[in-house]
């Protein structure tokens, strides 16, 4: 359970977040969408405890202070440890938790399978393609089986099939382990396919613009009329923000 109350953030002169209030229940899957540069990543980092902010963020009812060990995070940008192999990266969190060797090996083996990375366990990040790096980063966050997953555009740079497969896998894991997931994406299709709720953010400074409850059976059919209609509505909301942005010349400072 994640609760945000009037969270705000300004960097220098630039307001990034403004009065963001929302809450994600335990076991819920929420997607965040919003225009480029609106503040989604900043918001996620605030929740993870990687940024300071004004307002209150509660994790399972307790005021968040610093990093919460319950949280797993998939970064938007490249974030692998360049000095560790694929295996070393996947193991990192497990080593921190001082898991026994055997258990680590098992987890890594199954992650290598899941992400079709067999044979690359001893490769260093710079020896991987962009998509493979993304997969390792997701695997690293999943390895420690965190209660809460914050994912910032995790499936970007993956081919359509892998993306579909991983979407389904994520849902399977989520179903099985009742994780709370907060997921940023620009792909509205993906958002509607995955989430219980889709939160649309305004242009910067970001605040909550509109919330959509996606009350469709899983596994969802992307071509069903309900799916298509929610998708359209969300796109319309986003379009509004975009037009507004263009009209105002998107002046940053």
């Amino acid at each position, binding site marked *: 359970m994640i609760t945000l109350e009037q969270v705000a953030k300004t960097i220098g002169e630039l307001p990034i977040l403004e009065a963001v209030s929302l809450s994600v229940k335990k076991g819920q899957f929420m997607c965040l969408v919003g225009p480029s540069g609106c503040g989604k990543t900043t918001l996620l*980092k605030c929740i*993870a*405890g*990687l940024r300071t902010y004004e307002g209150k963020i509660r994790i399972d009812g307790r005021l968040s202070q610093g*990093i919460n*060990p319950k*949280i*797993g*995070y998939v*970064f938007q*940008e*490249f*974030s*692998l*440890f*360049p*000095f*560790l*192999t694929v295996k070393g990266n996947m193991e*990192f*969190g497990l*080593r*921190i*938790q001082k898991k026994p060797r055997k258990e680590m090996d098992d987890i890594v083996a199954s992650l290598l399978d899941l992400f079709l990375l067999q044979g690359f366990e001893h490769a*260093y990040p*710079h020896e991987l393609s962009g998509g493979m790096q993304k997969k390792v980063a997701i695997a*690293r*966050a999943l390895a*420690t089986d965190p209660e809460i997953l914050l994912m910032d555009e995790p499936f970007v740079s993956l081919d359509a099939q892998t993306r579909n497969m991983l979407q389904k896998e994520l849902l399977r894991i989520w179903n099985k382990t009742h994780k709370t997931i907060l997921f940023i994406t620009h792909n509205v299709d993906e958002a509607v396919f995955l989430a219980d709720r889709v939160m649309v953010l305004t242009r910067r400074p970001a605040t909550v613009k509109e919330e959509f409850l996606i009350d469709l059976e899983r596994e969802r059919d992307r071509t069903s009329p309900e799916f298509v209609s929610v998708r359209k509505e969300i796109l319309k909301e986003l379009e509004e923000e975009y037009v507004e942005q263009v009209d105002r010349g998107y002046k940053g400072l």
Partner: protein
Amino acid sequence: MRTHKVFIVFVFVVVWEVVAVLANSRFLPSPLHVGTTFWNLLSSGALFRHAAVSLARVLAGFLLALAVGLPLGVLMGWFPKMENLSVIIEMLRPIPPLAWIPLAMLWFGIGFQSKAFIIFIGAFFPILSNALLGVRETEPYLVEAGRVLGASDSQILRNIILPNSFPSILEGLRIGLGIAWMCLVAAELTGLNPPLGLGYLIMEARDLGRADTVMAGMIAIGVIGYAMNIALRQLEKRLVRWRP
């Protein structure tokens, strides 16, 4: 690569020979002359005895500098408060080793320790400095990635900052080692019992006007320093395989 290096050394020796012949001064003996002296010192075992003593002093001072400078540099890079220590460190840093001699003798007497201290003074600052640089230059995203995986401060230091700043730290070690040897003559200027050490060998030869022995001593220091440097590079190659 190897043949290139041999070639470069060869060119260096040839240039030296030519300059020596042209200068025709006893101050600048020819490579052949120096080589003979070097060989005599070597085969008599004298060079070995001098080198062994100096090596022990340099290693002691260097390892001490490593033991103090590396953690201190890392901590100063890590904790903003610790950076305030830099005011003392930056003031002590430029003080010449020779100026420390009276104090070193006062504190540590004439034995091994005062020599190690002088060498420590030389090696300490670059080791600290480059460790600090390495830590400060670590990209924030790496630290954040470690944090969200639950790493504590000390785990982040050990498992992220240290491996990531290894190239910079090793450069510091390399510079520090070079300076450790540089301080050898200063360290071996006084309080010698028995009178052994490459620095001593050089200064005695200099006092007596034996330019060939001075150069033989310089070469001995150069070669040992080079060998230790190579060892550090090998270490780097093994530990930093992950660089693109």
